[in-house]
């Protein structure tokens, strides 16, 4: 038990709850629907989850450090549009990719500087950049759409490797690297400490601002990664490409048990949250539930997850 706790920290119980939820939804869908248990469908759910996770991973780090990044989705939009434009102009996926990653990382650094140097509240700073990045995307696209990318590039979003969608490998990779960062490096420990109490962290000699800058930068970078995968999957870019992702991404993070107030949560939790969200949406599609019902169900799942966390935490503390 101690070893388990050491590996997963305080989130062990929370994660177990999520596994239970995934199992419950999975069993329910297997019983009540026809197509759920097919390999193709399950892989599709995972592919969907990995797209959400890639964008949510950076934001999860920002939340763990007690910040917020509302600009992730519009950062994705601009990166995707620019990458599409560059690929159209040069025919080179490499240039496209570099453009997306570079642009999104710069936007992330700008967020980080707004929070650390200008000392703007994170919510405000990134809400401002949300509009600015979206505005730049509007300017660049001028209402047009760019579509049709090289087949090699499209593999990133639609391809399979040994029968598993490529984005799922990316999800696994980001999860491993991110968990290494948060669990195996001093930096990760410091990110949690800052999220739990930034004043005490500073007065313990932790370089608070450098760590904050880092998480916003990573959040920008991950928006670029997600932009590429998304672009490759939908094969077309317009200035509205990212907007519908913002709320699902936040939902996945919250369902995954990461706190909006910093210091509590994990990337593993966000993976679970993304899978639960994708399962629920997939299940509703299979059950032919009208799409107008989906937000309602997602909201209910989110509240159940958060309440379950509160209940389990409360019980543990009362026992202790």
């Amino acid at each position, binding site marked *: 038990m101690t070893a388990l706790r050491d590996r997963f920290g305080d989130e062990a119980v929370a994660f177990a709850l999520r596994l239970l939820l995934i199992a419950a939804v999975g069993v329910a869908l297997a019983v009540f629907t026809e197509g759920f248990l097919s390999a193709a469908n399950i892989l599709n759910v995972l592919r969907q989850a990995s797209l959400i996770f890639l964008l949510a991973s950076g934001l999860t780090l920002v939340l763990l450090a007690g910040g917020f990044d509302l600009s992730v989705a519009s950062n994705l939009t601009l990166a995707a549009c620019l990458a599409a434009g560059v690929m159209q102009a040069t025919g080179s996926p490499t240039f496209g990719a570099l453009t997306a990653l570079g642009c999104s990382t710069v936007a992330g650094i700008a967020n980080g500087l707004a929070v650390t140097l200008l000392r703007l509240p994170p919510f405000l700073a990134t809400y401002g950049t949300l509009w600015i990045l979206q505005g730049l995307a509007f300017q660049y696209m001028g209402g047009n759409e760019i579509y049709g990318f090289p087949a090699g590039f499209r593999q990133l979003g639609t391809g399979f490797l040994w029968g598993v969608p490529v984005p799922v490998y990316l999800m696994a990779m980001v999860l491993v690297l991110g968990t290494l960062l948060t669990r*195996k490096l001093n930096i990760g420990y*410091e990110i*949690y400490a800052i999220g739990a109490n930034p004043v*005490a962290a*500073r*007065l313990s*000699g932790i370089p608070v601002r450098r760590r904050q800058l880092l998480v916003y930068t990573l959040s920008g970078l991950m928006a670029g990664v997600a932009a590429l995968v998304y672009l490759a999957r939908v094969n077309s870019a317009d200035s509205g490409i990212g907007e519908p992702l913002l709320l699902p991404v936040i939902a996945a993070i919250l369902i995954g048990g990461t706190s909006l107030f910093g*210091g509590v949560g994990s990337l593993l939790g966000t993976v679970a949250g993304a899978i639960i969200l994708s399962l629920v949406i997939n299940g509703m599609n299979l059950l032919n539930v009208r799409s107008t019902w989906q937000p309602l169900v997602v909201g209910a799942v989110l509240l159940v997850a958060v309440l379950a966390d509160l209940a389990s935490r409360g019980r543990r503390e009362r026992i202790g």
Partner: protein
Amino acid sequence: MPPSANAAAHPTASAQPLLELRGVSKTFPGVRALDDVSMQIFPGEVHMLLGENGAGKSSLIKVLYGAYSADSGEIVCEGRPVEIREPADARRLGIAVIFQEFSLVPFLDIAQNIYLGREPRRALTRLVDRARMHADAREKLAALELDYDTRTLASDLGIAQQQMVEIAKALSQDARILVMDEPTASISDREADALFRVIGRLRAAGVAIVYISHRMKEVFALGDRITVLRDGRRVASMGARETTPDALIGMMVGRTVGTVYERQRFPAVGDVALEVRRLTTGTGVKGVDLVVRSGEIVGLSGLVGAGRTEVARAVFGADPVTGGEVRIFGEHVRGGPERAARHGVGLIPENRKQEGLALLRSVRDNLLAASLWRLFPSGWFRAPVARRKAKEMIDALRIATPDADRRVRMLSGGNQQKIVIGKWLAAGCRLFIFDEPTRGIDVGAKSEVFALMEALMEKGAAVLLISSELTEIVHVCDRAYVMREGRIAGELPRDELSEQKILRLAMHGESKAEPA
């Protein structure tokens, strides 16, 4: 014009008090804030309230204002027993309090602030009669001989002006008893003069003024009568002419609550650990010099607000230094707490829960917060090492916790404080700055904290101890600096350390303004 002359024309026992407290007590878990306090306040007198930090002055004000209700005892207003259960009751009785933190709304103008919530209205439309509101406000200010433009926003007023507006506001609510909590604490001498003239005028008009001050000169220049509190009890009330500064200090000292830890060992003093020269900050430290050597515990005493915490924060790099220098083990250190921590300085801050700990994190996480760079210089966190180190600290400090995974929030104040200390012990600190380390912890834990402090010192650490408890400074320190108004008022070697001498340095000296 000043006040002090008409003490003779002053209410005698035969006059009826405007307000009287009879045997008022107020208890909080573990603390007797007020213990059977009786006090009479007469119209047209300036009644000085004196006492050390924690003597019960604030509690008394809060009872008068209705922020606390007394557990027992009686409050009598003009011969009639009254109940003050909430601030509205106090206002109805004509009691107004001017706190050190003002309550003006920054984006409203002076007139709007004075009449906030009770603006004069036109008869028919019920709309705010702005012309009349400003005229009334001007009249109230004129009564205080102030000619402020009533359209000035509160945010554009200086501190002294805000204070005057607060007074005008109180008077516009027909206040007959004006309670002022250290009104000269943050204003200039000239502004203090103006304030004293206003106080003189109010007194002449029959307003009773309860005035808390730590400045002896003010106490004697302004006060008609003086009440001294200690440990929540009234020590004495007397006419200002019947006593002397030294007699008052004698009444204030000698607190009996809390432990008196007796220092056990005095090892040989080593090299200079901390040297502060002409230290000046934007937070109110004005040219402080001090030296702490390895193997000694140096006290930094003074009243709340004298600038002690500000010195500690500046030394630790938490606030910017605007002048002078800080040398730590001979090295000039700049660049924030991060740098200070790596040079072996640890700050045990005054507000443990806000500044010292992450309450939701585990004992282990908190214990290691300051030493990651030292335990894992490569940047790779190793859980087994972390676990071992935390265990070592828990054992060494005898932290009472079932295991290292327990959230810090679940522990007692004393154990929480040990964790903050342990954090710096794990980081290998050699200069410890303790800011009010015994606040909010029980008697046994206090002794443990001091024993720990001594153990650290014996191993060659240097300790700077900030405490408002004079007994702690006197019994624990090798020597002590006393601060007053951002400056060092004096230094006392061990053989001269006494509560009297500390208080005299903390309170005496050049006051603001001679209310001449």
